[in-house]
C-alpha cells in the first residue's frame, strides 16, 4: 500500500474536523498555520482517522513522530532556543518540504509543528498502517 491511497481518507478527516471543503486540504497545506487547526482540532482529526481507517494515533504521537525518538535535550538547544543539527537532520526526513527553507540554526522548537503538512500526516498514517517489513 502506498501513501497515495491514504490521501483521500486523511483529506476527508481534516476537512470534516476543520469544517472546510476537501479541495482546500491540499497535500502542501500546513495544518496549524494555513488550515488554522487548534489542538482540539488535531484530536478530532485523529479520532476520525481512527474511525475510518482503524489507525490509532494519539495527539502526543505527532510530536514523537516528528522528533523520531531523539531526546528533547538533543533535539532542541535550550540556550539558543533552536533545533539542533541532529534535530534538523531528523526533521528533513519526516518533513522534507523544509529542506529548501534554510531553517538550520533558526528554527525554534515551538515552531516545528507549524510546518507540519497534510502530506506529512499522510506519511505518518502510512507508517502506522503498514506493518514494518512488508
Amino acid at each position: 500500500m502506498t501513501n497515495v491511497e491514504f490521501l483521500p481518507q486523511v483529506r476527508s478527516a481534516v476537512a470534516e474536523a476543520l469544517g472546510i471543503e476537501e479541495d482546500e486540504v491540499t497535500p502542501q497545506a500546513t495544518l496549524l498555520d494555513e488550515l488554522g487547526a487548534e489542538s482540539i482540532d488535531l484530536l478530532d482529526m485523529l479520532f476520525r482517522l481512527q474511525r475510518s481507517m482503524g489507525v490509532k494515533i494519539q495527539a502526543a504521537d505527532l510530536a514523537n513522530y516528528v522528533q523520531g525518538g531523539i531526546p528533547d535535550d538533543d533535539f532542541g538547544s535550550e540556550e539558543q532556543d533552536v533545533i539542533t543539527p541532529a534535530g534538523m537532520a531528523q526533521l528533513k526526513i519526516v518533513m522534507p518540504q523544509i529542506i529548501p527553507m534554510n531553517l538550520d540554526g533558526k528554527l525554534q522548537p515551538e515552531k516545528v509543528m507549524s510546518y507540519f503538512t497534510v502530506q506529512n500526516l499522510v506519511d505518518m498514517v502510512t507508517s502506522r498502517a503498514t506493518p514494518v517489513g512488508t
Partner: protein
Amino acid sequence: MRPAQRRVVITGIGAVTPVGNDAATTWTSFMAGRSGVGPITTFDASTFPVRIAGMVRDFDPESRIPRADLRRNLSRQGMFGVAAAQEALADAGVGADTYRPRDRGVSVGATSGRPSLDELAEIFHRFRDSLPLYRQPLEHVLERDQNVPAAAIARSAGCEGPMLGISTACTASGHAIGEAYRRIQEGDARLMIAGGYDSLISWLDILGFSLLGALTTDFADEPERASRPFSADRSGFVLGEGAAMFVLEDLEGARERGATIHAELTGYAATMNAYRMTDPPPDGGGVTLAMARALEESDVPPEDIGYIAAHGTSTPGNDLCETLAIKDVFGAHAPQLAISSVKSMVGHLTAAAAGVGLIGALGVLREGRAPPTINLESPGPKLDLDYVPNTAKSVDTSAAMVNAFAFGGTNACFILEKVRAS
C-alpha cells in the same frame, strides 16, 4: 463618580482537601510538602487511561455536617462544600445575629454533578431504542444540581441575601470570590460565604479530560510524583477533589464585632482570552490583562507583591504562558517573587482550585512561609522564576496574588493584603 466602596476582609477559612480535611491540616501538609495524590477510589478506574487523582480520605459527613437536613440531596462535592463552609463560619465566629439575614449571602464556584454510568446508560438506552423515556427522579436531579449545596450553606447560616452559583470550570472559585467581593464592596451584602467545591473524579470526567490529553499518564505507579508544575517533564495535570470556603465581610463590620481578620481583598479582575477553546494565548493575552487589572485596582505597587499562588496546572502550555505573563506584568521584580502551585500536592481541584490557592496565599501573609511546588527537580525551558521548589520557604511580604484560568479562556486574579491599621 463611583459610589462609596466598602473594604472587604476575609475572616473565616474552611477546607476539605486531599492533604487535610480542614484548613489547618491542609496548611500543615503544604508546609511539609506532602502529596495527597493516590489511586482513584470513587469508581473502578482500573481500565481507564488515568487511575490516580488527589483524593479526599476519611471524610465523615455526619460529624462535619451534624444537621441531617443540610445533608439532604448532597453530592460528594456538595458534602465537601457544606463542611468547609461550616468550618469557615466557625472560624469567623459568625453567629445567628451577625448582620441581618438579608445582608448575608453565598457565592460558590462548582460544576454540575454527573449521572452514574448505570443511570446514563439507562437514559440513553431508552432514548436510542424508542422506549418510554426515563424520567429522571427528583432526588437525582437535585443531587447533580450544583446550587443545592449552596442552598444548604445558606440555610446553615440563615443567608437571605445574594445567592450566586458560578460554573466557569477551573476559574469558578476565583470568579465566585471576586463576585462576593463586589457584592460587599457595593453594599448588596455585608457578609458572603464564598469559595468552591468540586469532585470531577467520575468515570465521565476522567474520560473527558483524558481524551483531550489534558491529564498526565506518567508516574501512574508513583502517584505522589505525578503532579509536576513547572517541571521540564510535566505532561498534563492530575485531578483533585475537595472544597475551600471563606467568610468575606466588610471591614467595618468585622472590626465592630471584633473578628479576627486574615487578610484584606483589595483587587480583583476577570478577563477573557477570546482566543481558543483550550490553547493558552501565546502572548499571555487575557492572563496578563487579569494580573495587571487586579494590581491596578488594588493600588499595590507590583514590587510589594511577595507571593503568587499560581494556577500552575502542570500542563506544558499553562505553566509557560503563566510564567511569561508574570514576567510581562512584574518586569524586573518577577525574579524576586515566590511563586508556587499547591496543585503539585493536591492535584487540580478545578472549580475549587482558586480557593485552594487562596488558602496558601492567606498562610503566606499569616505565617511568612510559602508552600512549595513539589516534584520540581528540573524546571522546563524558559521557566526561570522562583517556584519555591520542593520545600517551603520564608517569605516576608504584606501582599499576595492568586491566579485561576480555565478552558474556554476565562481568567480570574485577585490581590490580598495584610489589613492596614487605619
